[in-house]
């Protein structure tokens, strides 16, 4: 038995994500659902309310295993906390596919994710180019404890340190991925550093918050580089308020996750990682089909 949510006879994949605070996850879910529908599989898609609730996520994973699914998809809030449960899944012969944020474990058969360090480096590169390689740049990051938060911070600062000696980075501020909070932080940054040339928002909520903050402060000429998409961010890029952003491929990530799970159920061997890719987009390429395919509203 696998719980009544898993109706139908096809395989059932239980997916535990990092939550629903960002639209990003809805896009992943959409990709997963589409892939599952095509293959006659069922999925469930859950996640804790905020991306700090490590324990709640572990409990969700526990309950997911209790439902005895045919495979599990897992985006870890903490890269090691689930090791015991993953071992348990393995012992019960439930294949586990990691996605978005990997785990330091041998259990997952593969990880479908963005290379966040490289993606953040790419953001830094564009930022540096856009501001002419010198000036003050601020970072508004969603949090300092999650792997994605750290990598998108470190990838950005690392690239700057190595390649843009003229760029002066301000202390990193964290806004919990909350738009209003990130906007307030942005305004304070602008107030304290009138000469700031660029601001980087490290995920959807942070990036949109930065846009709001700049808008509300009435400042112009600040170069904003974002991450992920979401309607507000797309609008800002179209209107020129935001210079551009890195997008991951969430729909593709969801699809890759489910397809990997289904292959694992069939007993196929999987490649160690699935790089779902990232793209730089700005108002020159935003409407190209290639980019449109990976953006979400």
């Amino acid at each position, binding site marked *: 038995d696998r719980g009544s949510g898993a109706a139908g006879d096809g395989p059932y994949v239980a997916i535990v994500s990092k939550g629903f605070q960002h639209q990003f996850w809805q896009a992943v879910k959409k990709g997963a659902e589409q892939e599952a529908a095509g293959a006659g599989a069922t999925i469930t898609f859950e996640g804790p309310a905020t991306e700090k609730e490590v324990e709640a996520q572990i409990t969700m994973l526990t309950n997911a295993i209790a439902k005895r699914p045919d495979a599990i998809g897992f985006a870890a809030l903490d890269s090691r906390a689930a090791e015991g449960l993953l071992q348990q899944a393995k012992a019960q012969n439930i294949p586990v596919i990691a996605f978005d944020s990997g785990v330091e474990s041998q259990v997952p058969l593969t990880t479908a994710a963005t290379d966040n360090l490289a993606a953040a480096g790419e953001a830094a590169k564009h930022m540096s180019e856009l501001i002419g390689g010198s000036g003050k740049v601020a970072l508004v990051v969603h949090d300092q404890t999650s792997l994605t938060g750290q990598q998108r911070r470190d990838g950005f600062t690392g690239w700057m340190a190595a390649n843009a000696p003229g760029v002066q980075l301000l202390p990193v*501020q964290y806004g919990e991925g909350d738009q209003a909070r990130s906007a307030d932080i942005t305004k304070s940054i602008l107030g304290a550093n009138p000469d700031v040339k660029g601001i980087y928002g490290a995920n959807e909520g942070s990036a949109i918050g930065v846009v709001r903050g700049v808008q*509300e402060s009435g400042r112009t000429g600040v170069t904003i580089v974002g991450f992920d998409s979401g309607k507000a961010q797309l609008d800002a890029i179209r209107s020129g308020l935001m210079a551009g952003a890195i997008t991951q491929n969430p729909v593709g990530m969801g699809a890759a996750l489910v397809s990997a799970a289904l292959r694992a159920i069939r007993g196929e061997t999987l490649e160690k990682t699935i790089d779902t890719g990232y793209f730089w987009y700005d108002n020159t390429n935003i409407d190209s089909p290639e980019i449109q395919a990976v953006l979400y509203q």
Partner: protein
Amino acid sequence: MLARLQQLLAFAGLIVIAAVFAVATPTFGTYGNVVNILFSTVVIGLLALGTTFVIVTGGIDLSIGTGMALCAVMSGTFVVTWGLPWPLGALLAVLFGGLIGLVNGVSTARFGLPPFIATLATMLVAQGLALVVSESTPIYFNDSPGYLLLSTGTLIPDFPNAVLVLIAATAVAAVLLRRSVLGRYAFAMGSNEEATALSGIDVTRWKIAIYTLAGLFTGLAGVMISARLGSAQPATGAGYELQAIAAVVIGGTSLSGGRGSIVGTVIGALIISVLNNGLQLLSIPQEWQNVILGIVILIAVYADMARRRAVAVH
């Protein structure tokens, strides 16, 4: 005269904090930054105003955070999905907040549930419904620029409308709490509910009215936050209740009811946002910001209590 002076002194904590920041960073005192501080106080401020009434009765309202998110989503539904004119949609969203408050009031006053439980349940339900109604997607107000101007527009040059809304709401709340019969009954109930009932006051009805009023403020906060963000964000809101309640309590309103003031609440809310703003301006590492925030709140409240005791003795 003396009472006047005392009122003014209540600002002391706030003033001291502000003075320190003004010395520490020139940006702090600029017109633009002061407006920023006020602007960032709007949403918490509105929630705190409404919940002051509830706390004065001796109750508590945990539903204001996610309730606000649900009202924002309803506003999006009315304006964007249904295509109603935005002023009507906004009005309906505010009234929807009143409806949430009504439910809280009925659970508490009519069915006698402890306010903590009644509003905790509403908090959870609202959190879920916000996602259900919006299908877990933000609703964007792009096609209603007027709606957005509710927050960021400037009827007075360089002074965002959101702050005007907060000021107006403060005035209304102050008059209601101090001068209206409803306000007096809130104090009476908070002081001694059984005695108030035995004085012939229909406490059930009045309590429902008070929770409903608080709900209207929640609704207004929902409108203002969605106007600010240009979208209704269904997954936000949790945590705002604690901040709003903190503002109320820092402002000297007693959680056991019977005492409180709107001025105090506004000062409480400002203390929080001034601290947040100032610490960010000073680029204090963020992990230290909370530490300092906690300690300063402790000191400010302690000083305020000591001051009041001193005033009481003379």
